[in-house]
């Protein structure tokens, strides 16, 4: 804005009015400063836009199904895989020795460099590797046969190969194509049974385990209260045992159900064969998705693309997080950020209110203010250490000792969890809210306050009725900044509650429904984990981009919501003045 206004003014400078008017000195006219400012702005925007474009480009492309090359090398090895990326490299001297003269000449002409391609071969269970570099000079043939399938499985990563035969309900049969109705039906059935078995295990058996644990804790509570020899304890023991017997009965029934489903599923299998001739038999239930990579219509590609997105957004992770979905991480991030806002907003606003409206503006307040501003410079991991030491161990430990003695020595609140993470981040972001709120309060016109006081309102009534509503848009800005900062923060969370894989969401159907003490998954940590901590860093890399894109979008959505609320408030206070 300012830059543009400045420019138009410069343009109006009558440079060509005539020789009689000497040109104003360049420095005085401020043009160099203008160029520096404009350049800084352009550079900043270019960096941000470049970063976002990189993330978005990679994130959007990742799920597009790629073709599969079948590559034959000079030594007769046949490899099938998705071409993942290419690079130039400098082959060793002895490798060069063995090459044909033409290749040697070509490589020498390129300063000793030649290119190689990284193929995603899959079939980790067969080869012990997911990716393979193939130098171009070894390739004798490269084709894209129509019958090669890309098969995503629950375990071992993808399989690349073709179908040899299938067993449906124990009977072996040949299947002509993937569209074979018997095969499609059997696959769907298997996946349904698999999902059903999982549901039973997770929900119903989970609930039983929960009840058994609750009963055990009950008993332990009675023991702590009245001792092991008391009649209370014996009564409770009898009750708990009777109850446990019932639960175990239920458990056995469910276990049988699961067993049945699994047995039925074991009768539906497919045998695949890799390009090297190796065979692999998989239960149909374990096949997430498969498609003929080189024979995919446009519609087929789109279907695969969106089904991958749907899985990513709506499912739980598998394969050490490098595949499957990130739903728990989305949920964890959103829940933690929301809790953080709930904690940071009142705390920051109250602090700022006291500092600005009530505290006597003197040296002490100045020192407090400077300290608050400097808090922003403390490395975030330090907050993590503080959160762990103070919130988890000290506060949480006391809560456990007071309210959950029967669970000890297992910690309940005495370890990292959602609540402590939110509070730690609230602490980390509270300076932002305090500073923004103070500024917003200071910007409320004096005439408003005086008008209210002159009506006989007390100071508190004036603050509540006039000052706070007026300052609300500014306060919201602070909260938005804090939210963006907090949602993207990872380092402190690693100490106070974020985990690689959380077995349970912080919100579920079991009383009390919201479990603030549980550890949770977080998109930011997920990025770090997938990109740098997984067995298969190469496979994780595209997921880094997708997850980053998702995290940025999530923060973006939360910000947009907050900004819409703020603008609505702002419109309420901005009327025509005259």
């Amino acid at each position, binding site marked *: 804005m300012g830059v543009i206004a400045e420019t138009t003014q410069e343009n109006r400078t009558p440079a060509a009015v005539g020789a009689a008017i000497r040109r104003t000195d360049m420095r005085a006219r401020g043009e160099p400063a203008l160029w520096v400012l404009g350049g800084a702005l352009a550079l900043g925007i270019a960096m941000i836009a470049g970063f976002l474009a990189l993330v978005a480009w990679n994130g959007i492309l990742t799920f597009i199904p790629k073709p599969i090359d079948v590559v034959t090398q000079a030594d007769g090895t046949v490899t099938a895989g998705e071409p993942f990326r290419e690079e130039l490299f400098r082959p060793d001297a002895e490798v060069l020795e063995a090459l044909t003269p033409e290749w040697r000449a070509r490589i020498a002409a390129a300063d000793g460099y030649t290119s190689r391609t990284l193929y995603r071969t899959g079939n980790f269970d067969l080869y012990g590797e997911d990716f393979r570099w193939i130098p171009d000079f070894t390739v004798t043939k490269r084709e894209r046969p129509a019958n090669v399938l890309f098969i995503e499985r629950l375990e071992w990563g993808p399989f690349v190969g073709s179908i040899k035969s299938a067993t449906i309900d124990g009977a072996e049969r040949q299947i002509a194509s993937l569209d074979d109705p018997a095969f499609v039906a059997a696959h769907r059935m298997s996946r349904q049974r698999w999902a059903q078995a999982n549901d039973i295990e997770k929900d119903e058996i989970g609930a039983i385990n929960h009840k058994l644990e609750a009963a055990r804790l009950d008993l332990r509570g009675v023991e702590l209260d009245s001792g092991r020899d008391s009649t209370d304890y014996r009564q409770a023991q009898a009750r708990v045992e009777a109850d446990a017997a019932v639960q175990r009965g239920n458990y056995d029934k469910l276990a049988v159900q699961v067993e049945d489903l699994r047995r039925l599923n074991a009768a539906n299998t497919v045998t695949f064969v890799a390009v090297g001739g190796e065979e692999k038999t998989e239960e149909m239930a374990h096949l997430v998705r498969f498609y003929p990579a080189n024979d995919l219509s446009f519609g087929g590609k789109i279907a695969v693309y969106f089904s991958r997105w749907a899985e990513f957004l709506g499912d739980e992770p598998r394969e050490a997080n490098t595949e499957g979905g990130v739903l728990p991480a989305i949920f964890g991030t959103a829940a933690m950020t929301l809790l953080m806002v709930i904690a940071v907003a009142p705390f920051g606003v109250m602090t700022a209110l006291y500092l600005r409206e009530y505290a006597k503006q003197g040296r002490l307040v100045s020192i407090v203010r400077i300290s608050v501003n400097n808090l922003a410079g403390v490395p975030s991991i330090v907050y993590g250490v503080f959160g762990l030491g103070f919130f988890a161990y000290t506060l949480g430990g006391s809560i456990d000792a007071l309210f959950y003695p029967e669970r000890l020595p297992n910690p309940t609140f005495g370890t990292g969890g959602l609540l402590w993470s939110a509070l730690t981040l609230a602490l980390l972001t509270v300076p932002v809210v305090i500073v923004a709120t103070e500024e917003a309060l200071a910007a409320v016109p004096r*005439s408003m306050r*005086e*008008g*209210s006081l002159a009506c006989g*309102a007390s100071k508190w009534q004036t603050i509540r009725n006039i000052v706070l509503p*007026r300052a609300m848009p500014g306060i919201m800005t602070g909260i938005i900044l804090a939210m963006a900062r907090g949602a993207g923060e990872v380092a402190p969370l690693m100490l106070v509650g974020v985990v690689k894989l959380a077995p349970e969401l912080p919100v579920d159907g079991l009383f009390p429904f919201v479990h603030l003490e549980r550890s949770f998954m977080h998109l930011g940590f997920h990025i770090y984990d997938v990109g740098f901590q997984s067995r298969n860093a190469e496979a994780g890399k595209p997921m880094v981009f997708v997850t980053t894109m998702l995290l940025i979008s999530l923060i973006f959505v939360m910000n947009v919501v907050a900004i819409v609320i703020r603008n609505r408030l702002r419109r309420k206070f901005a*009327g025509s003045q005259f």
Partner: protein
Amino acid sequence: MNMDIATSAREDTVYHVKRGGAGAVLDIENLSLWYGQAQALHNVTMPMEKGLVTALIGPSGCGKSTLLRCINRMNDLVDGLSIAGSIKLHGEDIYARDADVIALRKRMGMVFQKPNPFPMSIFQNVVYPLKVDGVRDKTVLEETCERALRSAALWNEVKDRLDQSALGLSGGQQQRLCIARAVAADPEVLLMDEPCSALDPIATAKIEDLISELTGHYTIIIVTHNMQQAARVSDNTAFMYLGRLVEYGDTEVVFQTPKSGKTQDYVTGRFG
């Protein structure tokens, strides 16, 4: 400014006979005021008549607003302020140690130089003094709102949009809304600090008519630097200069036969 005048020998105030006779509502006695080290008021003594309009005139910076804001203790907000002397409302010292500022302000209404409606609906603006007083009865609030808006000559213009934001009104309407708000809680004294200085002539004329109509119901003290306005609307006029009360009495007398040379210069427009 003029150092020689500021340091010239202390003049005593010239008091003329005032209009009215019902007795003084407000009694300002020997009031001196300092902003930090700087003295802004010097020994002002000035009784104000009940039910009449008293105008405070004088050049910019002479202490009119300061004096006015002492009356409802708005100056309490200023850091480093010190005061000597007393102001009595019906004989009670408002600066007494046990005086309740909030109760005091409830007995007074104030209208500021720039209209300052709150960012709420017209209705909420008018009944704000009652709301902070704890009045919740809807019929009482509605009756008050209508009465206050009528006495501010605004009722007909806004009666159909009471629930709309007050910020949507024009400047003149906003100022009349502020007057309605100031009179809503039925105060004894109405303080106005240059209420027309931000308004156009038509809006100014309306406010002046309004002030004339309110005469008798309220004791009005109005600060203005517009001498015609003071002459038109006020019963008594006080001329202030450099923090001192120079001349005080019946408006006609002050304007037509002032005793002090300064007053004469000022009312004839020779400086100001």
